[in-house]
């Protein structure tokens, strides 16, 4: 197995973009939108082309919708913030029936229950890298935001100096690929459909599309990275 010092290697840009995407997405799904977050989204949209958008119709559409939303709505205004906040609450928190519950187990087991065997499987994956949810035991481990945060953390590790922390890049890539295949891609396609269908703002419809588009793309990216690192 080769250990590449990829800080200067040719894969770094892709690793960086993946880090950006997972950061972007985990922030979108971990919690209700804050003003800071909205500024961050807006800034990410300023550049002429959103990274890798041209590679995925879904991402492209999503980015366009969010840009439209941002051009029509002033994110500094209380009303806009409140609208988005309510949209997030309605889609992912409750109190009423959730149109798109953000937990893997609700999609993968018939009873749509939380804290099921999927939760434990996800936890096992986290524990391999000694991660646990801050709210361990209270918030189910298989929340979308946490799964994305996990991908973000591993993407971060990919960019760190492997010689020092003793983690093998190839192994990191393999683990990310399996997590993507065994977990995120098992349920996000259905989830993002629900979300796109039920979101009332272009903002969250767009986010649903970027999520779906990127995860599909990332599987390709991981395959490519693994061929190079084999």
């Amino acid at each position, binding site marked *: 197995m080769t250990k590449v010092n990829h800080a200067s290697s*040719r*894969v770094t*840009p*892709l690793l*960086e*973009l993946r*880090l*950006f995407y997972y*950061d*972007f997405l*985990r*922030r979108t799904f*971990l*919690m209700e939108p*804050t003003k*800071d*977050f909205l*500024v*961050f989204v807006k*800034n*990410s949209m300023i*550049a*002429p*082309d959103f*990274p*890798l958008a*041209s*590679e995925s119709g879904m991402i492209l559409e999503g980015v366009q919708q969010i840009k439209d939303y941002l051009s029509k709505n002033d994110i500094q205004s209380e009303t806009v913030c409140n609208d988005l906040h309510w949209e997030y609450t309605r889609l992912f928190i409750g109190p009423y029936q959730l149109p798109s519950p953000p937990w893997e187990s609700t999609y993968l087991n018939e*009873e749509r*229950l939380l*804290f099921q065997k999927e939760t*434990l499987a996800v*936890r*096992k994956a*986290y*524990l391999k890298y*000694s*991660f*646990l*949810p*801050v*709210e*361990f*035991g209270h*918030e189910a481990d298989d929340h979308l*935001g*946490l799964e994305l*945060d*996990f991908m973000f*953390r591993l993407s971060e590790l990919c*960019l760190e100096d492997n010689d020092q922390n003793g983690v093998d890049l190839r192994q990191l890539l393999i683990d990310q690929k399996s997590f993507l295949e065994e977990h995120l891609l098992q349920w996000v396609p259905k989830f993002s459909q629900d979300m796109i269908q039920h979101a009332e703002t272009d903002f969250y419809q767009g986010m649903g599309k970027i999520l779906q588009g990127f995860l599909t*793309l990332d599987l*390709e*990216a991981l395959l*490519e*990275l693994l061929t*190079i690192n084999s």
Partner: protein
Amino acid sequence: MSLIEKAKSHIMSRRSFLGATATLAAGAAAAVTLPGCGLQKVDSSVAELADKEGEWITAACWHNCGGRCLNKAYVADGVVVRQKTDDTHEDSPDYPQQRGCARGRSHRKMVLGADRLKYPMKRKNWEPGGGKKELRGKDEWVRISWDEALDIVASEIKRIKEKYGNASFFLPPGGSGGDMEPIRLMSAYGGCTTRWGDVSWGAWPVVWQKVTGITTDNGSMAGNDRFRLRDSKLIFLWGANPAQSSQGTPTFNYLQAKKAGAKFILIDPVHSETARVMADEWIPIHPATDTTLVLGMAHHILTNNLLDIDFLDTYCVGFDADHMPDGADPKDNFKDYVLGTFDGTPKTPEWAAKICGVSADKIRQLAQEYATTKPAAIITGGAPARINNGEHFPHAIMTLAFMTGNVGKPGAGVSPNMHNRATNAGPVLVQPGASGLPAIPNPLAKSKINSGEMWNAVFTGKYTASKGVQKNINIQMVWNWFGNTLNQRAGTTRGIEAHRKVEFVLAQNLFLSTDARYSDVVLPVTSQWERLGGLLTGNREILIYFRQIMKPLFEAKSDMWIATELAKRLGINPTKAINPLSEAQMLYNQIAGAKVMKADGTGYEKLVTLTAEDIKELGAKGTPQTGRISYKEFKEKGIYQIPRSRGDKLEFTSFEDFIGDPVGKKLATPSGKFEIYCDSLAKAIEKVGFTTKSPLPKYEPSREGYEDGAKNGYPFQVITLHYYRRSHSTLDNVLWLREAFPQELRINASDAQKLGIKNNDIVKVTSRHGSVIRQAMVTERIMPGVVALGEGAWVEMDEQAGVDKAGCTGILDGHIPTGQGHTGFNSCNVKLEKYNQPLDPDVKWPQRIIF
């Protein structure tokens, strides 16, 4: 181009756009902080623990809460990670899941609370014989060893026995269940004085038993089962709030009756949670005056030809002069009382309206509707009869049902079908076997003091044994366990004084509850989660098998262990007298003896199949047996729920047999009929020795009832609610529950306005017996003139100001013995004033953590 190349060119163009130094990832992420809700790095020991596969174990929710649900704990390596409730089968109206309430689901927060008592402890200034007794409740605590604690207790018991005799030990049992271990021990040691008097069911038990001749029930098992309720066209929930007092399935069951077309009328000073869900009509009423509403309705029915004369003639005595029992004065009949023939006061709707606060027109409408819509059921809670000298209400309301023939027919009925029996009338369908623990008779069984006299007796040295018989008593030791007697009986203010007077006070508890707080020595006990396991009953269709969840916390021990160790020190052979059976054997006995009703309703069969291996696993001795389900299934599911369906042989309506055959199946009353004129009831009440009751249902104002307050400077009535936060006083300390349910004082908006009280203002509530302060909840959902407070808050005295900050209703309620010796929590008058000191929300109060 590959993605790798695409990325490269993107970054290149991006850098030219943003400037060469800005890497995309770092630039984006650093700008916004991510609040603490994602993943975190943990150390390897935590990781290892979290990785352990756990097991769902049925966990006891053992409280006297009015419900009974299946609660499970996910236990990994002895750690209770989380809880869930019944998912053993699909939920449906006919076969509902037994799902837990907020309390049951926070149970982990109770059992594993930081405020659990961890070690035996004694009061700092304690000395043999007392030692600054006035400091009880205020003194500091000193941690001691079990040996020292047990030695202190044993030597005080010996000393007091020698000096004052066994009757000076006062062991007031409280709550339900529990094996009464301290009483076992003291019975083996020569006996002790105990407490008597109904707390929950109000004045129902004796009235029900005398009027119907049924002595095995207090009325709460009577009425319709949940299927027959769907036959009702009209249901009065009279002072009944199952959504709060009977959590679990009852409200769901009532909803099925509503879906099937029943109209619901709720009579209650409070627009309760049940009213919110169920009420087609809400009739607010002054507390302790329900009897007048009944009599006003009776007057309308009587004077408008709405009587079911056949029913009265066939099944009742005492309605009119022609149907009186032998030896009774014919003038003393119910009809003439209502018409006012001899006392000159017809009990007209107008007469009733002046007292109960329901308009005369409304009373007529209710009477008309009740008498013409059949079948109609009247279901009451304990509350309207939980008043001083409250026997008339149950008697009157039963009579109302007799007048319209609304008894003994599916969907009809009149009963206090409440607590965990609500919507589940009828014989128990599945039940545990006996543990086999032999009873130890108390040599001083007759030394029993009524709840309404017990604390006074500490000072007066006297108590009422029966009519005209006062007995001497010299209480010198109070021993509290299992219940929370000082907190949960009326007269808490007097009780605290009594606790400061006697020579020794001992408590065993999970927490520094009120009982424990005012003690000299406190012994930490284990919860059911830390014991071997057991069976729990609730509604008549289920039996729950809970198992041990975790090891005893710190130095906590079981009540039986404590009794056993004390026995050794008192020279009693513990295995012979106190504790002859192992915990395992008692559990096995209950399982092996469990039985379930056969599908045809003709009798019981064994519930559990036990193989030789099962018995071995249980660690008991016994013979294998065959039952309806395997031991493995019972253990894994943790519950057996009997299959039910509409039209099955297990449906139930009380008195069907008597109505079908009034001669062959006559009642066990002296007349063989329902007794509207009930001499045996009058005699029974008289014999108790506190107050008298006429053989007829009449209106006699309660002591400290509605009429009494206005003229004596206490213009408001306070009623006590079963409160979501706790089961009586249990679970009151759980922070989650404190946050969700703040123990508010409900007050009507018009009253609040007159007093200048706004929402969340602190209000001082003062009765003749004590004062509490609480934050106001200003609402239209309560009758003007009435305030309501949840019962069970743990007393927190501000001794200087003389107020209880927690809002314990026992502080407000008087220490008053009346009627059959029940406690009259809902006849109590208060005055209100705005209080000018702040009061932190309960959830912010320091927990009672001693060590």
